[in-house]
Each structure stands twice: as C-alpha cells, then as structure tokens.
C-alpha cells in the first residue's frame, strides 16, 4: 500500500500561528487599503469639487453620523429583510421547478420556452406592475427581487443537472438505488457547485434590483437612502450607502456562502480556488 496520494488534504485547514494569521489579515486588507489610498490621493488633488467626488475622510464621518443617528442600520435592516424575502421566495420556486425540469422531459419541454422568454426581462422592468399590484413600499420591492433572483438560480441549477455524470447515476442503480435515492445521493450533491453559483448570482442580481426598486417603488431602505442623499447633495452619504451594500455582500460571502463551499464542493474536490498549481 504505497501508492501516491494527492498531497492536498483540503479537509484539514492548517492550524496557523498568531503571526501567520496577522499576515493573512494584512493580505486581505491590502487591496482595500490600496483602493482607499488611490481614492484619497485623487480627492486631495482637488480636481473635482467634493460634491462630485467626496473624500474618504468625509465619507467616514458621514458613515459615523449615519450610524449614530440610526438611519443607516434602519435602512440596511429594511433592505436586508426585503432581500431575504425576495431571495427565499425566488429560490423556493426556482429549486423545485429546476429539479422538475431537469428530471422530467415533459415538464422541461413545457416550461423551457416560457422561462427562456421571461429570463431576458430585467427585474426592474417589473417595477410598474409591482407598484400597481403591491403599491409603493416593501411588497413591490420584494416582488422585483423575486423576479431577479428566480432566473439565475433556475438557470444555474438546470446547468448543474445537465452536468451530472451519467456513470454516477448508473453506478448507484447497480447498487440498488431507487429514483428518489438517486436524487438525494447523486443529483443533489452533483448540482451543488452550480447551485452555489446560482445562489451567488441570485443574491447579486437581488441587490441590484433591491437598490433600483427602492429608489423608485419605496420610501425606505438603503436604495432609497442613496437616492434621497442625492436630492440633498449629500454626496458622502451616497458613498456610505454604496459601500454599505458592498460590505454587507462581503460579510454574506465570507460568513455564509464561502463556509458552505469550503465544507462541500471544495472538500469533495469538485471545485478549487484556482488552477495555478496544476
């Protein structure tokens, strides 16, 4: 028993010393520090007036003021609730429909043309009907997010089902697997990498529609705050809103999506960080 084993044992994360961890944090922060430095240099050159190009410092103080007044946390929590509802409803429809279409030719033939037609329509194009049906407010925003989340999740799930290796299904059949067992033990885990892509894109598309939807169809939330700040020429507050969205996304990615991938698709060798080591 002396056969070569692949050296990467990705199920075991290396235990790192405090100094190495510090270096790791520094490496992660470096791109952001560089971005802020470029931004600061550009704004100190005074090429544009602050209302067109607010400085990092003014944005920082606007951020502090918005957190102190409670405006930012409130707006963000309203937006995140809309996003959560929109994402959950959109995914709750897309997942069963996706597996049905992927596993059943008749339903695929029936739904595919409809899905294809509808997926080209941007979520924001539903704003007029969203307002007519739900009135100005969170209901309309949630509806727009649902329409934006649904298609990327469905489309990527269908791709994932098409990529399932037939030999894995056949091997399971020769072990006595029923259709249901194949769905649970083979199809579902097989589709996870693409499903995660769909979820990422779904949330990203959801954010876009959230901000657009709130600007037009709501009077609350982070999108509305950005829009509102522009009305009062509070340029620094616009940037606060924009950055807040980016930061919330980063946290969502780091604290929820990445850990799921590390413990599933990466652990199983279905996905890697990159291909520089091959």
């Amino acid at each position: 028993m002396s056969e070569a084993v692949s050296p990467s044992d990705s199920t075991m994360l290396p235990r790192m010393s405090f100094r190495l961890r510090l270096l790791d944090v520094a490496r992660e922060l470096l791109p952001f520090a560089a971005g802020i430095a470029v931004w600061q240099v550009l704004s100190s050159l005074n090429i544009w007036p602050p209302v067109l190009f607010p400085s990092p410092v003014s944005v920082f103080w606007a951020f502090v003021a918005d957190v102190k007044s409670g405006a930012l946390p409130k707006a963000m929590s309203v937006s995140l609730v809309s996003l959560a509802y929109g994402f959950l409803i959109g995914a709750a429809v897309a997942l069963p429909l996706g597996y049905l279409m992927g596993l059943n030719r008749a339903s695929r033939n029936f739904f595919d043309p409809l899905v294809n037609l509808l997926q080209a329509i941007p979520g924001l194009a539903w704003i007029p009907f969203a307002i007519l049906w739900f009135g100005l407010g969170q209901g309309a925003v949630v509806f727009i997010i649902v329409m934006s989340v649904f298609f990327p999740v469905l489309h990527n799930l269908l791709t994932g089902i098409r990529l399932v290796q037939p030999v894995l299904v056949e091997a399971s059949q020769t072990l006595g697997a029923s259709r249901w067992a194949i769905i649970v033990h083979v199809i579902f885990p097989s589709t996870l990498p693409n499903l995660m892509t769909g979820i990422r894109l779904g949330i990203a598309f959801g954010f876009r529609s959230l901000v657009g939807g709130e600007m037009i169809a709501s009077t609350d939330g982070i999108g509305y705050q950005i829009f509102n700040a522009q009305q009062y020429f509070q340029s620094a507050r616009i940037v606060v809103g924009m950055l807040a969205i980016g930061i919330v996304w980063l946290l969502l990615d780091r604290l929820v999506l990445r850990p799921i991938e590390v413990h599933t698709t990466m652990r199983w060798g279905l996905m890697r960080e990159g291909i520089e080591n091959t």
Partner: protein
Amino acid sequence: MTDNADILSARGVSKSHLDHRSGHPVEALRDVSVNVGHHEFVSVIGPSGCGKSTFLRIVAGLDRPSAGEVVVAGKRVSRPGADRGMVFQEYALLPWKTTQKNIEFGPLLKGTPKAERAEIARRFIALVGLTGAEHKYPHQLSGGMRQRAAVARALANNPAILLMDEPFAAVDAMTRQRLQEELAAISAAEGTTVLFVTHAIEEAVLLSDRVVVLSGKPGRVVADLAIDLDRPRRWQDVRQEPKFADYCAELTRHLAGTKP
C-alpha cells in the same frame, strides 16, 4: 447449454441501434449466449467496438437487448439491480462520500442499520487494503486506491454476480498488475462470481476460469476457452507456466480471426 445452477445465463442476446449520422441500424451484438456458474470467473474479450461492454451493460440492466434474454439467479433482467454489482473503468465513486460512506452506500440503500454498515465497510476496506483511507474523499486517493474502493463497494453489497468493465484500464502498469493479482486472490477466497470484460489477453488468462472471445462488428461468440491453471495465480509464477503462454497464443489466434 443452459443450466439452472448457472448464476448468469444470457441467451441469444442481440443488440442493434440506429447510427446517428447515417440513420441506418448498426448491429452491435448477434446472438450472444454466455453462462457463468457459481463461483466462476469468466472474462469476455474482443477487439474494440465488438460490443463486449454493451453486453455487460445489458447484463447489468443499463441497456436493453434487441432480442434474447438475460437471467441472473433465476430472475429475468429488466432493469439495474443490487444483485448485479458493477465496477466501472472510471471508478464511479461518489465524490461527496468518503471511502467508507461509498462502501456503505449499497447496504444503506437496503436499509442496513448503521452499526452493521460500518462493520461491513470495515471488513471490505481491510479486504482490498484500504485501511487508513476510510475517511478520505475519492479525489484524495490515487487511481489504484479508487478502484480498490470501487471493488469494495460492489462486493460490500453482496451481489450474485460482479460485473467488471475494463476496471484496470485507467491505472498505471505496476498498479494494474498488483490489482489483478489481488482481484484473483479476493475472488477465489470470497467465491465471487465474476463476469469481466477486457481487451487484454494476459489479464483475462490470469484472472479467469473461462475466457469467451467475441468477434468484432457484430459481436458474436467465436470461442469459449477453459483456463486450467493452479491458483493462487501470481504474475511471476504464471509467466513461467508453458500452459499460460499456450492459452494466450490460442486466444490471440481466435482474436486474429475476428474482424477488428
């Protein structure tokens, strides 16, 4: 020719399919009859495209014959089932299950209790020499180790017959020889009934009690040769045997007479 004591009895199996481009029917197998008795190790050899893999897939229930029938352990084959375990060339381990969970998969599907499953897995992991790799995922194993795991998975399900489709074609030559010797030893010790498909003559002779030769396009049985060599069979011993060379030469003659 057919015997009730046979585990596998394939009678008059033919298979045609439509060629995608020409639209004409292509005959892959014509009137193939093969029997495999209890504890017998039978290889099917033939040139590429002779339909030997198609024949194995028909026995597994993964393909349907155009004519003829396959009976395994007294039951007519109509779909895949746990009584016909299969080992694929490309391993076909589930990437999201560890070695142990892959091997437990068949018993799990049968509803075997957890403790009993673990016991079965332990036994077959030891049998194929994978102790220590229980909790590794397939991507962390070498090709040879993956195929050991696939063999263990098939055996752990206690099938009436083990079907093997060129299982060692994808591993390196050194590993292949070791896996062949181990399979010969395991199948003899466990009394496994095996139907083995390969294009490698020496491999077939080393492993088998009988070798069936298929001609090419369409596949038809042109020879059925009993291999009378002592066991255990190891490459270093078998190569010294004049009978081994004779068997290989005879099979080569049969294959040469077949169209590629």
